[in-house]
């Protein structure tokens, strides 16, 4: 079985991966459906089960959507996958900046951000100018955008407005653009299979977040920083990190690494992801909002796009640059 898989062409291998993932999702959806039509005697228990199932449903729906998007991106090709991730950046940035109130004078900076900086960053990824796209936003945009803002002649809360804009760009554009950038890394002996790297990163980070979330509910301990997050606890964090890294080691076969290296890289990605998620939680608490999405929906628990991908936005640059540095690519 192993040698059969090894001997398939890269495209066939990735196709097999998608078949597996769709199969797992289908099984999960069928299970959720079967559980939902089950009847319970105790009404309170039934209500509890129903709400848990609803949450699970939400995760499932997001997973279906993400896998479909990845599959489409892979089918259509690297360049279109890039455009798809550009779209994700666009919507995430839109959510972030909606909740960072801007003034009239910021309009030009915002236009530049959405319609110049974002496309330029993704275009640099397309051209595989790794050195340039790693410094474009932290150096050039960081210096140029406040200048455009200053030209608008509005000094009220100048630092605050520009800092918020810069943060949004770093997280939503810079961070997100490193995910499709993984598709452009050329590992020796690993050509045309970079879709697996993206899959590896996403699965590892998402598994870590989900494991951390479940561990925090099952084995509650004192949170590290209760004002920021009631579920970020040392024990659940450690469990999440361990589970994420183990998943990474198990998936080592689809990466160009041995399980030990895959474990280490998964650990790095999970670290950055959990730290990033915690930081975004702090930002949300500062604004006094439960999620980045449209505010009316937050009462039903449905989050926005940024809530789902924020761990990925932090993990991707760290993962990308660690891999690039370690392998001298």
């Amino acid at each position, binding site marked *: 079985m192993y040698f059969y898989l090894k001997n398939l062409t890269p495209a066939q291998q990735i196709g097999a991966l998608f078949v597996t993932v769709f199969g797992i999702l289908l099984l999960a959806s069928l299970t959720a459906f079967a559980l939902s039509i089950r009847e319970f005697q105790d009404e309170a228990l039934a209500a509890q089960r129903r709400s848990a199932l609803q949450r699970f449903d939400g995760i499932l729906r997001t997973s279906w959507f993400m896998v479909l998007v990845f599959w489409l991106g892979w089918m259509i090709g690297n360049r279109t996958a890039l455009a798809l991730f550009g779209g994700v950046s666009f919507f995430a940035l*839109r959510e972030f900046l*909606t909740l960072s109130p801007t003034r009239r004078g910021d309009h030009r900076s915002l236009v530049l951000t959405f319609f110049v900086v974002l496309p330029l960053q993704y275009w640099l990824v397309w051209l595989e100018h790794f050195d340039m796209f790693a410094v474009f936003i932290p150096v050039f945009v960081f210096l140029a955008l406040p200048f455009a803002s200053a030209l608008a002649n509005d000094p009220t809360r100048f630092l605050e407005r520009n800092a918020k804009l810069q943060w949004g760009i770093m997280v939503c554009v810079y961070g997100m653009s490193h995910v499709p950038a993984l598709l452009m890394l050329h590992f020796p002996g690993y050509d045309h299979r970079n879709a697996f790297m993206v899959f590896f990163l996403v699965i590892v980070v998402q598994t870590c977040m989900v494991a951390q979330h479940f561990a925090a509910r099952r084995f509650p301990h004192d949170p590290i920083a209760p004002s920021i997050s009631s579920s970020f606890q040392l024990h659940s964090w450690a469990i999440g990190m361990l589970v994420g890294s183990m998943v990474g080691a198990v998936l080592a076969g689809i990466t160009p690494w041995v399980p030990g290296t895959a474990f280490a890289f998964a650990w790095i990605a999970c670290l950055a992801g959990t730290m990033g998620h915690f930081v975004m939680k702090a930002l949300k608490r500062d604004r006094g909002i439960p999620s980045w999405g*449209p505010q*009316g929906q937050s009462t039903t628990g449905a989050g926005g796009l940024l809530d789902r991908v924020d761990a990925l936005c932090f993990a991707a640059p760290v993962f990308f640059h660690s891999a690039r540095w370690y392998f001298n690519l």
Partner: protein
Amino acid sequence: MRAKIMGYFLLGLVRLLTGSQARWVGCPPKAEQRIYFANHQSHADLVMIWAALPQELRNVTRAIAARDYWTKTPFRQWLTTAVFNVIYVSRERNADEDPLEPLVEALTNGDSIILFPEGTRGHADDPQPFKAGLYNLAQKFPAAVLVPAWINNVQHVLPKGEVVPVPVLCSVTFGAPVRIEPGETCREFLARARSCVVALREI
């Protein structure tokens, strides 16, 4: 045909830029004769409410547009007649012409209308005082349901004097219908209607 395509294009554009979330807090979207009144911050207000309505109601809900501005070029005229089916009103006060005449005609035909009682686009945080048109229409057509709406955030999308819109999440919150209480004067009713609209901002 072209008008339909333009309509869908604008709908997609508004959704892409603003998310155009409709929040029916005080009443559901119903096919009855309604007068929607909202705060007015930018030209995108009309498209925002229009995009927030379900498709069946979009065809029968007509907005008000100032004749002098929107008939200046053929494109603007085509946009407002073929795509949006607006009602033109003249902003100049002529002695012999009742400015509400086209609105009355539309309401007699059974259409629902979208009205911005401030009259012009405002730039402050709070809406300007409402003009009397809403009161007169409500008196003439007691059967029409008056629905207040608050359009949120749209002033950030396209402020006055700018050309390129900025993507910001906007929402339209529709509140509970208001009615003229017996014995209420025009001033009192307008103040109450305005406070209803402002109250929707907090929800």
